[in-house]
């Protein structure tokens, strides 16, 4: 605490301009480095980007794949953005998504017969609840024992993966599937389509509405004000009558709901079953997306779309011209590092 008096570092040039500009510059810089990598690999960067764009937007079917991919990223990203704003370094979206998907799957598999048309909303609810429970455990360990939230949530991610694996290899697994997955859900548990006769499910609509809701809560309500205050200054928050425990708990719960719902829409909307590793990396992407959006809920929408379309585009780039799709990880990693450098701790400011 003593050493964190804030005076701009003098030795390295500070990044100037508005936050939005700096984010765009960071992404641009990461593409420049990526271009160099493609050139070193003996390929044409322009051809690579052409394939990425074609793969992402080349047909309605491709766009749908990207939009469906963006939905869970968006939901989880909003949760992470809110937490980071409130100074809760929640790294646990990854685990909350996995447990959310698991809870929704268990519900869809066991209760579809009894509930009929009501299965879907309850399965979504089960997913959100699963996420909340997982987040709440982390919050309780953090608050009750004073353990750093990053460490708790990181450890709980690994445990969540193993819980899902355990259940998939055990009681819920489809027999003779040859791959750890559950049997397919009944149709009543499938997420409805946003547009008939396409694969586009309503997840993206839910996610965009969630972003708008989060924006309103953050800026127009007392709860949102308390969260921002908690992120800005412990002291100010304390004098305003806020309690750290309450803001941590509510923020983790919100992240749990959103991430759990993200896991639920992935299993109920895309796979119609639980598959091992269905959400691998989603939570870490959500962190990157939240930071790329400089922790603004509405900006999470374009940031999540950027990540999702980059990923769908890269797969087709790999198929068409043989540039490995792992290039996307390079772009994501670089742009995240540059955004962090460009925005610095300013990303946490109210």
């Amino acid at each position, binding site marked *: 605490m003593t*050493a964190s*008096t804030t005076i701009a570092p003098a030795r390295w040039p500070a990044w100037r301009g508005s936050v939005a500009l700096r984010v765009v510059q960071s992404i641009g810089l990461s593409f420049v480095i990526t271009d160099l*990598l493609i050139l070193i690999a003996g390929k044409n960067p322009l051809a690579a980007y052409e394939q990425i764009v074609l793969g992402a937007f080349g047909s309605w079917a491709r766009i749908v794949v990207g939009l469906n991919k963006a939905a869970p990223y968006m939901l989880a990203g909003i949760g992470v953005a809110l937490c980071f704003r409130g100074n809760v370094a929640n790294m646990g979206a990854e685990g909350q998504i996995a447990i959310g998907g698991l809870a929704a799957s268990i519900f869809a598999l066991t209760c579809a017969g009894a509930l009929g048309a009501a299965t879907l909303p309850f399965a979504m609810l089960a997913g959100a609840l699963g996420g909340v429970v997982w987040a709440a455990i982390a919050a309780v360990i953090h608050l009750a024992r004073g353990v750093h939230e*990053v460490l708790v949530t990181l450890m709980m991610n690994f445990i969540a993966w193993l819980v899902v694996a355990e259940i998939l290899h055990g009681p819920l697994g489809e027999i003779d599937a040859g791959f750890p997955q559950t049997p397919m859900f009944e149709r009543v548990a499938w997420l409805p389509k946003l547009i008939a006769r396409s694969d586009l499910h309503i997840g993206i609509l839910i996610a965009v509405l969630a972003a708008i809701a989060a924006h309103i809560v953050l800026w127009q309500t007392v709860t949102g004000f308390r969260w921002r205050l908690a992120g800005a200054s412990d002291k100010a928050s304390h004098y305003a009558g806020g309690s750290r425990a309450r803001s941590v708990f509510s923020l983790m719960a919100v992240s749990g709901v959103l991430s759990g719902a993200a896991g639920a829409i992935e299993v109920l909307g895309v796979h119609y079953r639980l598959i091992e590793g269905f959400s691998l990396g989603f939570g870490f992407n959500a962190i*990157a997306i939240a930071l790329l959006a400089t922790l603004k809920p509405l900006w999470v929408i374009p940031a999540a779309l950027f990540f999702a379309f980059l990923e769908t585009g890269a797969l087709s780039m790999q198929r068409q011209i043989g540039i490995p799709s*792992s290039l996307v990880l390079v772009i*994501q990693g670089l742009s*995240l590092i540059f955004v*962090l*450098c460009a925005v610095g701790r300013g990303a946490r400011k109210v």
Partner: protein
Amino acid sequence: MDAALVIDFLSATVRIATPILMAAMGGILIERAGTFAVGLEGMMLSGAFSGVVGAYLSGSIVMGLVAACVGGLVFGVIIAIATTRFDTEHMVTGLAANLLALGFTSFALRTVIGRGQAPVIHTPLLESIPIPFLSDIPVLGALLFRQPPLTYLAFAAVVAIALFLRRTRGGLLLTASGENPLAVFAAGTDPIRVRFTALLAGGIFAGLAGAVLSLQQVGTFTDGMTGGRGYMALAAVIVGRWLPLGTLAGCIMFGATEALQLRVQAFNLPVSSYVIQMVPYLATLLVLAGLGRTARLPAAIGQPFRRD
């Protein structure tokens, strides 16, 4: 349970613990100096990759080891520049570096060497060096004194780092930078430079930890081959309460649970391998919760230091 099975289990424990231990030693240096070491995974992966590529291109395993150090170092530098010069949040910077390492190693493997496909590279493995006399002790000799060189190095590093932190001026400066950087500054040393240097050293250790996997145990590189061992090293540092010997104990415990998990069927255990795999993480949580607020997390870890 017969003796052969037990010896097999114990030697597997040492084998699995070694890369985690090597990375954890880097983690101790980084964290005691005041930076969260989430980036260990990426440094380790980079080390594993450049080790194999170095050995493959030069045909010399020694060059491979040098390359592994450089590979870890590069990511140490990236994280150091971001966290010390641009004041980025340590944890997220580490995650970003891990993402970058995963993508870059996989991309470079396919394009620079593989021409579009994942190439199959095999390098010779580092061979065991039996220590005269000691290696003839029954059971213990085979277990501890007939090991490949990096295993000796990892265990020697535990002692060296313990002495360094306790007994040398450099070690005291390092821990002071993690506890009270202002005091270090007042005493005439720049704590930012100390943290930077610690990240470089930590990068080298983590790079070598990657080499333990790729050059000493597997003999090739595959995408994401570190498979979370960097995070496990981070957990071992925490379980070991940021002390070298405690961390060694943590690594051995993690190695043992992993070895046990691979032998669930051989030992006829009534639990599934996934439940056993949870043990390291549950143990870390329990230790953390047990220590609670008394946990000796370096006091100024994660906080930026700026000269006024």
